[in-house]
């Protein structure tokens, strides 16, 4: 009983800590905006020229399925980081000295993650219910038909996402930006496999839901084939039609087999948490790994960490010649570049260089489709650090008391990011220029301007790497991997290369830099 009470208190404290943050308010606004897209039919499930009657089952199921997809992809990023925060703030070291077991600690984090996701789901459910009250086409409300999809679909999905977040925060290799990238691929794959009707991988019950609704439609219109479209459907021409054929659908007829397939996500979640407990280092800094140095060096540095005495201090300061300051932007950019590029394992640089070389050597289309996107995701952690290092490492006071911090250091951060972006796409930029493919070359140039500008802005505004990493990862994946032309910054297909888009991105980059500058000025005034 005591341990349950302790778990509850720990989870509650963690839940309070994250929900009282300003960033949580921003998150909830984002979640409600997503809900708005669903209730207005911009992100939803459509059946071509057929349409299910807007009733309790439909309203609940659409929101439950769509919110489960959203949680599976974006929810992870919204809840992860709680263990990392304990590590960074030193709270973890205090926890490590208590009798609290690693299992209980991680369970409390799991519960807190679940509670946070459930709060989001509950908000979306309330939004869906309010919409149902307005748009209901049957005149009656069936509460179970509305609520059951949230309970059966969203809750197990959220428990899995919560446990994976705990796992990624615990496993050493997955704690940072690499974990963010790997998760995106995992989550996208899971959602796609679910849509392809692989039942035991259907986390959001997409196939179960659409199969059930389409069966009802095909029963209402025998012999007719009902199409399916899911996702951002606002621009689909068929959707603009008013002449829908409507059919009635009363909800998924859950069989015991289907329910078992939902329960198995909870079992997997518990297993994932169990692995996390096994990997948990209990905030032991000797197990955390010192980034960027070999084991031999690490042993040596820890052994040598004994003090060398301050013997020389205080001798002959006045005999030293005073320096003559003369600021050069190029030197500051160089210093920012060194800072940005420092601390990666050796293979990081090899891969970065290899990608640029491969851009020159590989067939043009292969380089365009795969190598350029890979090159523009590899330095993610460098860009995401822009504008955040000062607050993350506590060097704000040192830099803000230096001369002209706005005019000197701040532009240098962006220029360093730009240099890295330009270097990342340099192989393809040269090839496109030589081949006379100016629009594509210009697209790469604009992307190289845009990405570090946005990273600097989001980093300065949020003080955290996460906002840019999540935003950029989503845009990069949907645009350059899934080839949605509107979001494809890198021009992986001819359709995504457009002068208008380049102009807009250029303007957005400039606007973004202005916002960043204003935000940094505000930091200077409010420090």
């Amino acid at each position: 009983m005591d341990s349950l009470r302790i778990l509850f208190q720990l989870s509650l404290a963690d839940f309070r800590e994250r929900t009282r943050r300003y960033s949580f308010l921003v998150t909830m606004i984002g979640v409600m905006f997503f809900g708005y897209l669903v209730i207005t039919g911009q992100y939803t499930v459509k059946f071509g020229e057929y349409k299910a009657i807007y009733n309790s089952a439909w309203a609940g199921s659409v929101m439950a399925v769509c919110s489960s997809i959203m949680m599976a992809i974006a929810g992870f990023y919204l809840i992860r980081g709680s263990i990392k925060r304990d590590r960074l703030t030193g709270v973890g070291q205090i926890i490590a000295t208590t009798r609290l077991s690693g299992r209980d600690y991680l369970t409390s984090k799991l519960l807190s993650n679940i509670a946070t996701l459930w709060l989001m789901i509950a908000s979306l459910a309330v939004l869906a219910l309010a919409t149902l009250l307005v748009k209901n086409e049957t005149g009656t409300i069936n509460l179970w038909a509305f609520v059951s999809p949230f309970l059966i679909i969203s809750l197990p999905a959220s428990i899995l996402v919560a446990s994976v977040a705990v796992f990624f925060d615990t496993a050493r290799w997955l704690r940072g930006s690499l974990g963010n990238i790997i998760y995106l691929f995992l989550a996208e794959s899971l959602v796609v496999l679910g849509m392809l009707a692989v039942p035991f991988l259907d986390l959001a019950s997409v196939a179960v839901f659409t199969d059930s609704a389409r069966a009802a439609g095909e029963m209402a219109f025998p012999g007719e084939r009902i199409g399916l479209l899911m996702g951002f459907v606002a621009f689909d021409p068929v959707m603009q039609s008013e002449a829908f054929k409507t059919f009635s659908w009363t909800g998924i007829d859950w069989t015991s087999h289907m329910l078992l397939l939902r329960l198995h996500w909870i079992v997997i979640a518990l297993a994932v948490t169990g692995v996390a407990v096994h990997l948990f280092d209990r905030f032991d800094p000797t197990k955390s790994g010192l980034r960027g140095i070999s084991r031999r060096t690490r042993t040596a540095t820890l052994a040598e960490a004994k003090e060398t005495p301050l013997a020389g201090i205080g001798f002959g300061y006045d005999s030293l010649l005073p320096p003559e300051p003369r600021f050069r932007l190029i030197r500051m950019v160089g210093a920012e570049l060194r800072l940005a590029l420092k601390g990666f394992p050796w293979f990081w640089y090899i891969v970065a260089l290899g990608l640029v070389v491969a851009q020159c050597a590989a067939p043009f289309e292969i380089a365009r489709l795969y190598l350029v996107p890979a090159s523009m995701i590899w330095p993610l952690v460098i860009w995401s650090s822009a504008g955040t290092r000062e607050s993350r490492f506590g060097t704000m006071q040192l830099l803000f008391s230096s001369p002209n911090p706005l005019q000197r250091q701040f532009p240098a951060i962006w220029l360093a990011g730009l240099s890295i972006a330009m270097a990342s796409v340099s192989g393809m930029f040269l090839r496109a220029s030589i081949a006379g493919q100016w629009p594509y070359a210009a697209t790469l140039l604009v992307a190289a301007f845009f990405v570090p500008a946005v990273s600097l802005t989001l980093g300065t505004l949020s003080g955290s790497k996460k906002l840019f990493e999540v935003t950029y990862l989503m845009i990069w994946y949907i645009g350059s991997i899934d080839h949605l032309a509107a979001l494809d910054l890198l021009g992986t297909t001819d359709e995504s290369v457009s002068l208008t888009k380049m102009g807009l991105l250029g303007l957005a980059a400039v606007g973004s830099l202005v916002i960043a500058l204003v935000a940094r000025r505000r930091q200077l005034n409010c420090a």
Partner: protein
Amino acid sequence: MNLRTDQLGKRYKGNVWGLREFSLNVGPGILGLLGPNGAGKSTLMRILATVTKPTEGNASWNGHDIASSPDSIRRILGYLPQAFGIYPNLNAIEFLSYLAAARGLSGKPARKRISQMLELVNLRDSQKRRLGSLSGGMKQRVGIAQALLNDPELLIVDEPTAGLDPEERIRFRNLLSELSGNRIVILSSHIVSDIEAVATSIAIMNKGQLLVHAAPEDLLRRVRAKVWEVVFASSELTELKRTHIVGSTTRTAEGVRARVVGDGAPAATARQGSPTLEDAYLWLLSNHQREPQDG
């Protein structure tokens, strides 16, 4: 060379004043800031270091207002904050090069200066070790080195001896003494002995206000004939502390020997002692804390 504050004030959220009506005029030498935690020392230093803007009043360097033209002071400023961060993946040379670039120092002159500063704080042997692997005291020395990079005319050091062992504290104080000739050094600490050893003038603060700004000798004069040494039984110490201002205490075979600051002798057996800065500090602080009740 003159640093002046006039009715300086800083209000935080919730109408809490970190600093209020703070007026001071300082010339070359070491100004020691003394005060308990929360006295406003760090707030004052952050304002003078242009990191924080005052809510009211003004601070000026050689007649230039610091808040409206912060770069006039940043060029000649060296600042060691109470809690400062480092980039753990850089070594000392790289970290100092980075901050040197931000201060307009680069190329060969910067390399030379960094080398000199590392020599000065005796970090040459560890200059290529990741900062993340250095001890707290060594990181503090990196902080000292960065504060001196531009040979500052105004050096502000906030609790600089935190994390240093006793020997290092003494050596750091020696360095400050050496630096004080033709520049203004502002040193804050709640360790009275650190201030006592080097300060040419002392400002005692409490609850965001300046209690007194005077030379150490003047402060000592204020408690002349007010310091008593008395031996009490251990059981009577609590009562003594309740009724008197008690400074340091030491155990002896006869009981507890206590230094008491007050107008009258705490006991018939009390003997007058020679005043120290700590006595003066306790006396002024205690009087200020009593003021609201008295007034």
